[in-house]
């Protein structure tokens, strides 16, 4: 039974998130809840409404002129428009909207595992269906958790912390077969749950062990098909079955 004390405790977590007193892990946990639960999103929005008027006590600070220029630049407004095919797909809102329902479902599963082992393998009836990998920086900070779902042939990438990616650059996910060249999985938004389809060709090229890597690329992704920018985080995917075993 929920006592009013319990309700207060739960309510306070959202208030503390909005106030900004939680550490990075606790913040990430609430951010996940907000992304998945209408109830959590509403509670957070209510606290934002309650506390945000405080900012009116702060003096306003006029940004330097070049901030606007940098925003325009980051959005590639000043550059001639380039429309390579992959860009038009990834930047189009429609596939993302369509996939968001699926993303939510898989993300629930992903989060359940997020707080456990960095790599967790689910065995069902002897075959590996889902693998989770923590994609980390060299300093050990987890940037994203990727859940590879072989049955659905997709990978769900959930941000664990706010990763600072230079504005105007894209983050691209790569699957690296053992001893092989990186294969592009796709460009994804670094700060929100992303679902990327895994093509049959891609799955066919994944051996028994593979790694994931995220590189920073020009808007829309690497123009060469191989990482061109710095690799900012990597993660191991162990126990990837060969496609023949997977089925």
């Amino acid at each position: 039974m929920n006592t009013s004390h319990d309700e207060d405790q739960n309510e306070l977590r959202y208030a503390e998130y909005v106030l900004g007193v939680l550490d990075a892990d606790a913040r990430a946990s609430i951010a996940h809840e907000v992304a998945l639960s209408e109830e959590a999103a509403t509670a957070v929005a209510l606290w934002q409404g309650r506390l945000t008027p405080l900012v009116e006590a702060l003096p306003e600070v006029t940004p330097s002129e070049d901030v606007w220029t940098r925003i325009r630049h980051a959005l590639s407004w000043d550059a001639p428009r380039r429309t390579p095919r992959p860009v038009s797909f990834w930047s189009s809102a429609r596939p993302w909207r369509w996939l968001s329902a699926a993303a939510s479902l898989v993300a629930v599963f992903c989060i359940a595992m997020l707080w456990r082992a960095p790599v967790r393998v689910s065995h069902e009836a002897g075959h590996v269906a889902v693998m989770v990998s923590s994609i980390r920086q060299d300093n050990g900070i987890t940037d994203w958790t990727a859940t590879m779902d072989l049955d659905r042939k997709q990978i769900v990438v959930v941000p664990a912390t706010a990763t600072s990616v230079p504005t105007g650059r894209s983050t691209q996910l790569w699957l690296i077969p053992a001893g092989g060249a990186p294969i592009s999985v796709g460009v994804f938004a670094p700060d929100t749950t992303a679902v990327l389809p895994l093509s049959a060709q891609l799955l066919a090229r994944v051996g028994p062990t593979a790694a994931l890597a995220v590189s920073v690329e020009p808007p829309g992704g690497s123009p060469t098909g191989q990482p061109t920018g710095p690799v900012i985080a990597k993660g191991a995917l162990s126990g990837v079955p060969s496609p023949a075993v997977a089925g």
Partner: protein
Amino acid sequence: MSVTTVVPDHGELNRLLAQTAEGDRAAFAELYRRTSPRLLGVCARMLADRREAEEVLQEAYVTVWQRGKAFDASRASAMTWLVALARNKAIDRLRQHHHATADVACALDAIADDDPTPPLRAERSEEYRRLEKCMEELEARQRGSIQEAFFSGMTYSALAERAKVPLGTMKSWIRRGLLQLRACLET
């Protein structure tokens, strides 16, 4: 682009944000003009470095352009949504770089003072006046801690260290203060 500091009107900002979400560049520029001084004020208070505060501001507006559709006018005013977005980015950056913000917070303490300068007071919203009234009902240390937490983005432990009180004491001041504040705002 020149930036003006007009008092933002909720309906107008909501409309500009909705148009921004539809890809209207002129609306986005206007939204930036009207709201960026407020957002930079918030970021500059949290991040020691002006350059870094402007970087966060830039990131925030790029996100506004890219994800403006996430704004739900039935849930929040545009200004509340924008401030929350900028604060989240600033707090995430603080956590990422493990900044020592205490000194900055000290230096800027006057800003969070309860006694606003008269010209500012006239510009304040109804919501602010209501919140201010409820804040005044809190114990001084509860009020002070909540304000400091909100403006600085510091964690419980950093706040406790700075106030030289045990962590549990700081948590209890803030938590009781928050619940009391909610009760007051709901009456």
